[in-house]
């Protein structure tokens, strides 16, 4: 038990001295993950939707070449950024600019570089998620949209994407939580996130383990709060969970089914002045 009470004391001691640094690290981590995920989603949606443009073998050659090229470019982007570690991407992008310009141009802030890396990385994953979300929408929905004369873009906007978003919402949350943790590699380009604070603190105090405990608790707190909030959002998007049939209205039972005993006319509600319930 002695070790545990010592640990608690160490943690309290560290907190007393470095709490503002830890907190500002957490703030940076949350901000970077949030901005990166939002921008990544935008990239993912754009790429995913472009990827879903139907390839029509009867279309003019120029259009077919364009679609093929577009798909190849997106494919390449996804494979490269999904297939390399984010820590390497960070270093790669951060040092590419000064290398090519002989030091004349460099990222003015690590924030810009970090946001760029996280967004591009998340975008690669989201592209695939969006593609999956679009594929998982019943093809009949597209046919229904085509049949009333909607264009591909209109069908996407009003029918397919709203349904796809619901399918990929858990994936967006997943990416956000992954980003909360994985932004810890941004210390490589001297971004001061939560994990970078740990490195700073242990550099000064050598209390590796107590600081790691604080980090563990801090990261868990951030991810648990995030999952809780994401679940709330999902529930809201889902709407009423009721799959009950609307059978309470007596008109359905009679409309067009039974005939009037005297006039032999079909029952129906012809009230043209019906204004709905809203």
């Amino acid at each position, binding site marked *: 038990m002695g070790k545990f009470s010592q640990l608690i004391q160490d943690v309290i001691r560290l907190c007393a001295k470095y709490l503002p640094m830890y907190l500002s690290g957490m703030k940076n981590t949350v901000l970077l993950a949030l901005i990166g995920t939002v921008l990544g989603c935008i990239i993912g949606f754009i790429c995913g939707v472009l990827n879903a443009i139907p390839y029509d073998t009867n279309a003019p050659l120029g259009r077919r070449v364009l679609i093929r090229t577009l798909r190849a470019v997106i494919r390449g982007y996804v494979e490269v950024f999904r297939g390399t570690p984010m820590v390497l991407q960070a270093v790669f992008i951060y040092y590419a600019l000064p290398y090519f310009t002989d030091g004349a141009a460099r990222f003015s802030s690590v924030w810009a570089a970090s946001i760029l890396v996280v967004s591009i990385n998340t975008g690669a994953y989201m592209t695939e998620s969006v593609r999956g979300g679009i594929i998982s929408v019943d093809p009949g929905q597209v046919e229904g949209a085509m049949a*009333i004369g909607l264009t591909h873009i209109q069908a996407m906007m009003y029918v397919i994407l709203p349904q796809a978003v619901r399918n990929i919402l858990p994936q967006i949350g997943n990416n956000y939580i992954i980003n909360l943790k994985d932004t810890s590699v941004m210390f490589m380009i001297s971004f001061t996130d939560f994990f970078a604070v740990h490195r700073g603190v242990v550099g000064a105090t050598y209390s590796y383990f107590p600081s790691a405990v604080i980090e563990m608790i801090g990261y868990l707190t951030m991810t648990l709060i995030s999952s809780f909030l994401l679940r709330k959002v999902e529930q809201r998007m889902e709407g009423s969970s009721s799959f009950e049939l609307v059978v309470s*209205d007596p008109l359905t039972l009679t409309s067009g089914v039974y005939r009037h005993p005297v006039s032999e006319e079909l029952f*129906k509600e012809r009230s043209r002045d019906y204004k709905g319930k809203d």
Partner: protein
Amino acid sequence: MEMEPILEVRHLSKTFGTNPVLKDINFNICRGDVISVIGPSGSGKSTLLRCINLLETPTSGTILFRGKDITGLGNEVFAYRAKVGMVFQSFNLFDNLSVIDNCTLGQIRVLHRSREEAQEYARQILSLVGMAPYCNAKPRQLSGGQKQRVAIARAMALDPEVILFDEPTSALDPELVGEVLDVMRELAEQGMTMAVVTHEMAFARQVSSRVVFMDEGVIMEEGDPEELFTDPRNERTREFLGRYLNQ
């Protein structure tokens, strides 16, 4: 009553891979026609409707809509599809939209009607099919018969010149078939031009002005329903209708 045809199908063929599904189909749809297309499964009935609506691209042949070939249309295809309504076997209502939004989407986006105008018109049409009280319901809350009536309303809301029905009652349980057929019967009485792929022989016989019998991608026989159902000329038609003829 000879009238100018709305749709003329000329030498239409459709091949999936090496499998010919439609072979040299010729037929017309005139204003006020109610055409029932009957035939065994896999005979190409549905593909014929889907070709007319350009959901499938015909392999060869022409389809004239009011005298104009629609098989080579570019961006006009969207306006054309709005003039030719389609009702599917599996309803294909937009699951993310309420009943009334299902009926206004095309009016607003394709016909460019104002939202108020579209909603007003959608309510009128929905009350024709007995679905006005469900304006704000989502499709998943409706029974199959109700969904199909909304789907019919969605097609009608665009004021199409002809509505194509692709086995509209095949996915419904027997108790719900009646309410959909009643709506269709009423449409027919009001003079709506319709082409119906169906297995409901009673409907084909009583409601339609003309019956087309298809088998193996070919129109085997076409004619007056009473004649075709009582005294089919073609041997294959006789065989197919055997069960009904004996009744």
